[in-house]
């Protein structure tokens, strides 16, 4: 299987110290209809994703709403069950984990959610919220030890430990997000999935939280999967960027390469659509405006999934499903026939 995986990943360096390895991951949700609620189709939210997340890096995952980026983040921690493919965390097969194994995984891999208003229990004080993972995992036993650890965690995220007895409604959005981060850090994780962690915050507060995430990464040696729709934010924070479209990773590579020299027309369109606060540049630039909407993941187009909206569509696009192939900068991969026609089956062939 390793041979296949290597080939499928199409050149994601095998030598790098990989913390999370994803191969051919699928999350399909059944669509039921009719009187007997028979399964009549599937929403292919994540549909064959290959991805490596290296130890200590921030991998930014971008895409439009409905592209499956949040589902992918959730599937890594088995918050939704994958329906196919493999995920390994630090060499361990995540899909085969027992309940106990899963608990350990979720101590070592945490999650920061989007909406700090919905993800904190309004009836728990900040201290109770942050201490809950400590209880679950049996860490820092004893009331005093736990209170001390809670205080440390609050301090770590830039909150005054004196606020420990307060309830979420007494905090602003930015402060709540800090509480959410403190909770995610309670189990001393190696890996954090940040799912739109700053999307609901105002610009000035968003910058504070972004700086905090970067400081914590340096201080604690964390690895991040940073899921966001905001390219500027992802570009700012990430070492590498992966771009998703309709359940697939269509381009991945170093942030500087993907951000300045994208090799896939979709990434180009996405980048050109991001407005920048510079009137001269905004008015002078040629924006690639894509037609139409993202197709439904329940009816994925044949061949390249982007071919229905692609400005550079040509012959093989409608029939051949492109595989990720190395193009552009070292470590940059794109799934696009413009760089030579390589189908998913070609990429699979050597190993199988």
């Amino acid at each position: 299987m390793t041979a296949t995986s290597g080939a499928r990943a199409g050149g994601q360096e095998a030598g790098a110290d990989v913390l999370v390895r994803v191969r051919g991951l699928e999350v399909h949700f059944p669509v039921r209809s009719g009187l007997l609620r028979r399964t009549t189709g599937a929403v292919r939210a994540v549909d064959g994703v290959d991805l490596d997340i290296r130890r200590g890096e921030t991998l930014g995952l971008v895409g439009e709403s409905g592209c499956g980026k949040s589902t992918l983040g959730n599937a890594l921690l088995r918050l939704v069950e994958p329906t196919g493919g493999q995920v390994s965390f630090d060499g361990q097969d995540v899909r085969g984990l027992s309940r106990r194994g899963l608990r350990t995984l979720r101590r070592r891999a945490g999650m920061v959610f989007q909406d700090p208003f919905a993800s904190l229990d309004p009836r728990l004080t900040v201290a109770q919220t942050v201490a809950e993972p400590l209880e679950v995992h049996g860490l820092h036993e004893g009331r005093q030890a736990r209170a001390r650890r809670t205080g440390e965690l609050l301090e770590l995220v830039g909150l005054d430990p004196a606020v420990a007895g307060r309830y979420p409604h007494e905090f602003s959005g930015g402060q709540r997000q800090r509480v959410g981060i403190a909770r995610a850090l309670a189990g001393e994780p190696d890996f954090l999935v940040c799912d739109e962690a700053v999307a609901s915050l105002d610009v000035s507060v968003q910058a504070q939280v972004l700086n905090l995430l970067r400081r914590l990464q340096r201080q604690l040696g964390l690895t991040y999967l940073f899921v966001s729709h905001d390219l500027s934010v992802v570009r700012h924070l990430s070492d590498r960027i992966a771009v998703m479209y309709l359940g697939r990773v269509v381009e991945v590579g170093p942030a500087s390469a993907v951000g300045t020299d994208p090799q896939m027309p979709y990434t180009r369109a996405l980048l050109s659509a991001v407005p920048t606060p510079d009137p001269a540049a905004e008015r002078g630039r040629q924006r690639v405006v894509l037609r139409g909407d993202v197709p439904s993941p329940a009816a994925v187009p044949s061949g390249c999934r982007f071919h229905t909206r692609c400005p550079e569509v040509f012959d093989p696009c409608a029939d051949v499903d492109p595989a990720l192939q190395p193009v552009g900068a070292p470590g940059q991969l794109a799934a696009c026939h413009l760089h030579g026609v390589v189908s998913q089956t070609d990429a699979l062939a050597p190993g199988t």
Partner: protein
Amino acid sequence: MSRRSAAGERAPAPVTGSPLLEVEDLRVRLRTPRGPADVVGGLSYAVRAGETVAVVGESGSGKSVSVLALLGLLPSRTATVTGRALLAGEDLLAMGPRRLREVRGPGVGMVFQDPMTSLNPVLSVGRQLTEGLRAHEDLSRAAARDRARELLAEVGLPDPRGALDRYPHQLSGGMRQRVMIAIALSCSPSLLIADEATTALDVTVQAQILDLVERLRSEHGTGVIWITHDLGVVAGIADRVLVMYGGRCVEDGSAEDVLTRPRHPYTRGLLGALPDLAEPGADGEVPELRTVPGTPPQPTALPPGCVFWPRCPVRSDPRCEHEQPPLAAVGRPSSAVSTSASEEGAAGAGGVVHRAATWCEEEAG
């Protein structure tokens, strides 16, 4: 594949002529359980035909409330609105409910943030579009339906005839927002107000909507008030920008002046806090974002002096703590700024005065 027209082709807004909308000293006070909240504290601006004015601010800055007040959409039991808002010479704030209803539609069209909650889920798109048309214009059912189809085609909805019989849940977010815009435009308003109209949309769809609004502005000479927190969007579409903080306008002027030569410490902080897409992402060596410490003030407990004082990194003038600096002309050193008389002289690009409510010196911050 359509391409966005480049800068040079963008017709600048005509500066002459009387304004379409003139807002003077608009104040909104809300009764809340925690006491009175001065949500908008003295806002004055003007919008001319074919001009786009962007109102920028963070949540709670009073930007949405200020336009809801104009259209009489605030609950009268809790909101006290004072000031003047002249739409073609007639004061919106002094109008009775009946006259106001006549004005909404042909006078002012409004697009709200969330198209899912502002469209009626149990009425078809066609029904919602023709409702306004038939209320304001003497049209037969068939004629209204024809007009509705034209409108949907104009906002770029695929298959406009079929869309008339569909319901909001059958449309994507971008399509719903187009329907909202079509409704707002149905009676050819002279002024279009868009409140965070693209915030809930993906960037690629946002680009489509911005293109559309830009086309309407230049083809029909519609005046546009664009409310947003996204300074990037502002740079692309606005002729003039008004920055709000704590219910007050802290800086206004041409988009060029405000975004490239910001004078108020808050505007500077806001621009500095934005991650830059073009920034070199040399692995791990990205500079820290500049931040504005703290959080915006509660409208029930505004600071006694300058609204920004508690968070201000400059605080160069001792008066700031106790006194609100007035919105005064700032700008190029060439135009010697003395007092109000010099406002014409300080006019920047396109004859728009650049003003800021600050006593900070140019170099500060």
